[in-house]
């Protein structure tokens, strides 16, 4: 109500200026001469609409010979309402322009029996920068109506046949013999059809079936009421069939002969053909009577066809293109409103083009036909946007409208704090501290890099939600609030970040230790509880807890081992002769020192001596003590506790250093030389420590250890190569699996201990280490016997193409670009990939024998919610496609050539602009080894393995120092390992966080 009153007031003010359409229903509106009243053109007043909403045609009704149309107007402040009409099946034409408040119209120029359709659109003219611009709404719904003509003779009626269109021969007018037709027989010889007249009709076996005029005899005629909906020229044709070319027909319109045509033979009474009757016939708009005179028989007639002459042309160009920036609240999304005049009625759509700043125009999209406005949303501030538009149809495109452009100033209105708390804090923490696997944001990074990462990858799964402006605002917010800008000084404390810890022996370490301690080869530890694996490493100090299961297993193992130990030579236990009393009296301390890897305290000595003394025979005593030692936490844990050094840190004892060295390099307890060195304080300088380290590295056990590290680092251990589908990969036997495991051992140890020992060679080796089975499997030539030899290879070599690596990072029945890419990112580049969003179905695409793997994974790049992360994954993984799921080389997959080109994005920092192309694993290896990324990452991984620790914030200084050393040493692995033992992190421990 309020709305009408306001407008009414405006109206009263301007009522003096001319004829005015009053508001209200039931009144007849004057037509045609009404002109829109003179409203002052407002300048972007916020009360009037910027974009015009589409009106709705609500009702259509008839009164006498008039059709009344009614509609709703959803907007205020309109300049005019434009009404268009279509007569029957002709084109739309505007029939009147009404005031901007009018809600109805009565059309009195109609004919009975003909269907009319109506639609409206609204118009608003306003001033922008003192220039008038006009907006049009899109068209409303369409309503149609026909006023019946009771006197219509048209059959089937009530509408006459509409032209252009078909006139079915059986639909001659009503009226009967002599009026509507003339037929010589008294009844329908064809006996078809519902009508009782005598016109002969039979079934037409033609497309669309229906009936046809048949048994035509000279002198017969028929009439048809037709209506031409426009003055267009028409081509007339007839659908006929005849056995002989004897027929002739005349066509009359309103008693005037317009055509006289001979009917050719078509080969049968049901062999239908279309023949031309007359071309370019102009039938004036309106009703006419069509008469067909059969001059000569016989032939059959199905229908007459009246086609408009289609002059195929491009549509008329749209005009009056205007562009303006939306006011609040749309402005928050930086929206530009476009409007234009649609001047064509034969367009299939409009093509809208846009240029940003000085760039070229690019097509923004195709809008539907009859569109007259568009909103371009989510634009970035600080740019000029220019637009042009043209109409298109099947023939081509119109010329362009003129260009309209708008500038959006750079104003930062993003609520970064609100956005962060709503969308980011869940994963990254309220203060950017990071939650679970999601990174902490408190580190110092370049603003540009941070903004880029946010813009391109955040939030995960809804990347488009945060545009450039939003990303910059967030980056500013994060850096201002979460990051402390002071430089982290790497002081002594931060160089020794590993906390005091006890490290539970892994099963392998237990077995190795037993072997050296008791001289027994045993598999008892295989049944111990499996270790918790953290980030691929089974020796994480913080993740190993002793459960009752452990206790039971330790008890049972110790019982078995102690019994075996006493049944063999005592010389493996202690060096003196245990049958001599003085030796036996020292057993507890001497053996105890080996068992605990350090001298016993007095209390401990007494404790165990009591056990020794509790037994009756020497054997039982020894057995008892051994069994007890093997259950003691002093045996089961490696101690890295140290003693306070007065500077807030703890210095590892000589014995602790001995253990640290031996478990790191040879995976077992310190030998007598090391224990002796500890006893004599000869592990008290970096040089001495390094000397021992070098000695250890020369032992055979060092190679086993190297393999143990590498297999965990690459997540390619023997039991990480999962089962393979025996049908798809019948050649993947246990022998191959085992050989691949040994290949890893052979390769890494060859490089490190016999060749250059550099990361470069690890990555880029142009040879492989193979035995006979692998040589055949890889196709690198013939090798005799099970021993491994070095063979040159052209299509494989280096870590990336190790059989165990390729087979571990694959599925049972296919390769896996995803797994291989994640392997590269996490194990070789130390870039953690987030898992897919929880609600996403992450099923790999099903096997398809007609496609390569690359083709099946295409959706990851085509779907934007996948692409934001997968751009770092798939293109990288495709480089491995030259190797199938069991690590065999292939040049074809399902008969299609394999494409091993790949793209590595984010090599140095996780932004997509850091992009590198490569081909195959060899190309990738070159890329990785040329960047410091892999070398840095190896450092981090070895750090984790060496110290049983994750790498977090507090470890950064120490890790950085190690990285620098690695670089300085030319990335030599052995040198690096030796350097590690001389670093403060090796011999110092920090106090545990309380």
């Amino acid at each position: 109500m309020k709305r009408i009153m306001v407008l009414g007031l405006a109206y009263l003010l301007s009522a003096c200026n001319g004829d005015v359409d009053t508001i209200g229903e039931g009144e007849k509106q004057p037509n045609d001469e009404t002109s829109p009243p003179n409203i002052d053109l407002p300048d972007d007043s916020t009360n009037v609409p910027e974009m015009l909403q589409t009106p709705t045609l609500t009702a259509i009704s008839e009164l006498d010979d008039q059709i009344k149309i009614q509609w709703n107007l959803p907007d205020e402040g309109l300049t005019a309402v434009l009404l268009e009409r279509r007569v029957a099946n002709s084109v739309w034409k505007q029939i009147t322009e009404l005031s901007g408040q009018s809600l109805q119209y009565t059309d009195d120029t109609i004919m009975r029996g003909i269907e009319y359709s109506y639609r409206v659109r609204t118009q608003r003219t306003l001033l922008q920068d003192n220039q008038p611009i006009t907006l049009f709404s899109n068209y409303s719904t369409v309503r149609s109506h026909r006023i019946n003509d009771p006197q219509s003779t048209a059959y089937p009626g009530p509408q006459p046949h509409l032209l252009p269109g078909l006139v079915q021969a059986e639909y001659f007018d009503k009226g009967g013999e002599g009026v509507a037709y003339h037929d010589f027989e008294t009844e329908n010889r064809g006996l078809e059809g519902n009508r009782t007249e005598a016109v002969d009709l039979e079934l037409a076996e033609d497309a669309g079936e229906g009936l046809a005029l048949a048994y035509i005899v000279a002198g017969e005629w028929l009439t048809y009421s037709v209506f031409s909906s426009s003055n267009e020229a028409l081509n007339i044709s007839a659908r006929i069939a005849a056995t002989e070319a004897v027929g002739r027909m005349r066509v009359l319109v309103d008693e005037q002969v317009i055509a006289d045509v001979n009917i050719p033979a078509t080969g049968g009474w049901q062999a239908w053909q279309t023949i031309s009757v007359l071309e370019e016939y102009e039938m004036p708009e309106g009703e006419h009577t069509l008469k067909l005179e059969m001059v000569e028989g016989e032939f059959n007639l199905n229908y007459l066809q009246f086609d408009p002459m289609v002059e195929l042309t491009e549509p008329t160009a749209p005009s009056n293109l205007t562009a303006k920036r939306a006011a609040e609240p749309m402005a928050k999304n930086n929206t530009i409103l476009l409007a234009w005049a649609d001047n064509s009625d034969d367009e299939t759509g409009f093509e809208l083009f846009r240029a940003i700043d000085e760039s070229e125009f690019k097509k923004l999209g195709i809008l539907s036909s009859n569109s007259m406005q568009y909103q371009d949303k989510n634009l970035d501030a600080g740019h000029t946007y220019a637009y042009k538009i043209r109409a298109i149809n099947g023939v081509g495109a119109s010329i362009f409208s003129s260009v309209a452009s708008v500038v959006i100033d750079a104003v930062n209105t993003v609520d970064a704090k609100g956005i962060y708390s709503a969308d980011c804090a869940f994963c990254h923490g309220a203060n950017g501290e990071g939650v679970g696997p999601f990174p902490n944001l408190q580190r110092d990074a370049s603003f540009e890099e941070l903004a880029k990462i946010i813009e391109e990858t955040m939030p995960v799964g809804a990347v488009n939600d945060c545009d450039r402006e939003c990303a910059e605002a967030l980056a500013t917010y994060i850096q201002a609030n979460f990051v402390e800008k002071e430089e982290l000084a790497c002081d002594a404390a931060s160089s020794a970040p590993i906390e005091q810890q006890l490290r539970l022996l892994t099963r392998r370490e237990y077995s190795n230790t037993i072997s050296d301690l008791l001289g027994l080869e045993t598999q008892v530890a295989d049944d111990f509880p499996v270790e918790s694996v953290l980030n691929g490493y089974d020796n994480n100090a913080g993740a190993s807890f002793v459960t009752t299961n452990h206790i039971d297993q330790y008890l049972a193992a110790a019982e078995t081992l102690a019994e075996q130990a006493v049944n063999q030579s005592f010389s493996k236990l202690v060096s003196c002769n245990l049958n001599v009393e003085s030796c036996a009296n020292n057993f507890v301390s001497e053996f105890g020192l080996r068992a605990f890897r350090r001298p016993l305290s007095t209390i401990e000595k007494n404790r165990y001596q009591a056990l020794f003394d509790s037994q009756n025979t020497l054997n039982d005593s020894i057995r008892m003590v051994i069994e007890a030692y093997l259950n003691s936490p002093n045996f089961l844990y490696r101690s890295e506790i140290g003693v306070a050094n007065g500077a807030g840190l703890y210095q590892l004892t000589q014995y602790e250093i001995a253990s640290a060295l031996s478990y790191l390099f040879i995976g077992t307890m310190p030998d007598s030389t090391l224990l002796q060195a500890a006893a004599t304080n000869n592990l008290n300088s970096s040089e001495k420590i390094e000397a021992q380290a070098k000695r250890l590295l020369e032992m055979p056990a060092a190679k086993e250890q190297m393999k143990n590290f590498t297999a965990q680092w690459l997540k390619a251990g023997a039991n990480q190569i999962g089962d393979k589908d025996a049908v798809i990969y019948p050649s993947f036997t246990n022998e191959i699996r085992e050989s691949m495991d040994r290949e890893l051992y052979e390769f890494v140890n060859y490089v490190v201990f016999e060749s250059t020992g550099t990361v470069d060679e690890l990555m880029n080796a142009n040879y492989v280490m193979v035995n006979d089975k692998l040589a055949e499997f890889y196709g690198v030539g013939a090798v005799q016997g099970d021993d491994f030899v070095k063979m040159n290879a052209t299509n494989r070599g280096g870590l990336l193409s190790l059989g165990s690596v390729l087979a571990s990072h694959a599925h049972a029945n296919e390769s896996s670009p995803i797994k291989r890419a994640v392997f590269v990112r996490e194990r070789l580049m130390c870039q953690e990939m987030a898992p897919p969003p929880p609600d996403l179905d992450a099923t790999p695409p099903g096997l398809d024998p007609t496609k390569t793997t690359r083709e099946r994974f295409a959706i990851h790049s085509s779907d934007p919610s996948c692409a934001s992360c997968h751009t770092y994954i798939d293109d990288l993984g495709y480089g491995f496609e030259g190797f199938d799921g069991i690590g065999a080389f292939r040049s074809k997959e399902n008969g299609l050539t394999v494409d091993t080109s790949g793209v590595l994005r984010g090599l140095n920092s996780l932004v997509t602009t850091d992009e590198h192309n490569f081909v195959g694993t060899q190309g990738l290896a070159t890329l990785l080894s040329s960047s410091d990324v892999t070398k840095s990452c190896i450092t981090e991984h070895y750090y984790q393995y060496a110290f049983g620790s994750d790498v977090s914030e507090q470890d950064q200084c120490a890790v950085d120092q190690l990285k620098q050393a690695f670089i300085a040493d030319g990335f030599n692995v052995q040198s690096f390992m030796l350097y590690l033992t001389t670093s403060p992190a090796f011999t110092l421990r920090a106090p545990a966080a309380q």
Partner: protein
Amino acid sequence: MKNEFLKSRRRFLESILAAGAAAPFAGLLARPALAATNIKRVMFVYLSDGCIPERWHPSGSEFNFTIPEMTSPLASVKDKLVFLKGLNMYEGGATHEGGIRKVLTGNGDTSLDVYLGKNMAASTPFSSLQLGVCTNFQSTQGGGSYINGSRITTEDNPLNAFNRIFAGANPDSENNDSRKGSILDTALADLNTIRGKLGNTEKVKLDTHLESLREVEKRVKSTSGSCDVSGFNPTGFSVSPTDYYPKTYHLEKHYETVGKMQMDLSLMAFACGMTNVISLAWSHPVTATRVTVNGKSINGHDASHYGSPDSGGAGDFIAIKQWHLERYKYLIEELASRPEGDGSMLDHTLILTISDLGDGNRHDHKNMPFVLAGGQALGVQGGRMLDFNGDAHTKMLVSVANLMGVNINQFGYTGHGTGGLEGLI
């Protein structure tokens, strides 16, 4: 060594067999009397990789519902079951890794089985047991049991498990026990020395070690009754020491046999009062094992990517779930057939199915496949279906704890509120 049936056990069993006892439970538990009506037990049975929710959960109303194909083996024991529909797991990680980590922990650091084992009133030689069937084969994730945030490995070797659990069942083991007692005392003393020196450093680790030592010591030193364990391993399954990878008990062809042994072991452990809390895992998330069902070899993980509920893959998934649920039913039927107090063992025992996923194809944690059996004497009325419409599964964990007499109000995630499942009891 350990994989052999220890000679002493065999002798023990032979004597029992000679006396004519046949079935696993023939003969009575001779443990000191715990009034049968006070017994409370719980068993968690893990099935891998979720389900097809539309084919698992019944439709209908609380007492009047239809059981669809996936859970059809349970129709005959329907009156012993409560179907828990519409429970979701919230927070924590996604897909398999996230699911297994939180299903028994509610996203906390310790799983319910471990927690209950330590907090239930009745004390048993083993606070809880974690058993597996091919659970550690090609996986470091399986089981679902955690302590201090660290995974507890299941025991996959049934012979090892048997020897460990029933060591005390051997009347000849007296000498062993006193010897073990001394050794454990010494280890405890060493541990306390270390604790004294370290103060708060490595406290959690050492406290856990201490608790474990104490529990074993207590078990070793308590007077053990005899318990009839004849009938275990009727097929004479043995583990070959030269089967390095896979281990004998990890071979697919033994999946069914090993599973049966683990189940019988569990039933015996309950009957003999060795523990009141057992977690049994059939394989692990992203199962690597193939099981032959009606002559067809099916990998449960492949089948869990069933595509649409009507695909061929769905058929396989249904078949393999049915196979496992037949075994779940075996546990139910066996416990139901043994009298205890005024009813059966089942009346005092809860058996809950768990998984790492809800919908195996979508990898979500919604509408999880939880079915609760037994507990009729604990207050659970069977023959029902309850729909919780997306409520948090941690409330189910709380309810289970409450049914075990442990009166907690929350266990892990509380974003949907505290307390147990309304309407369960």
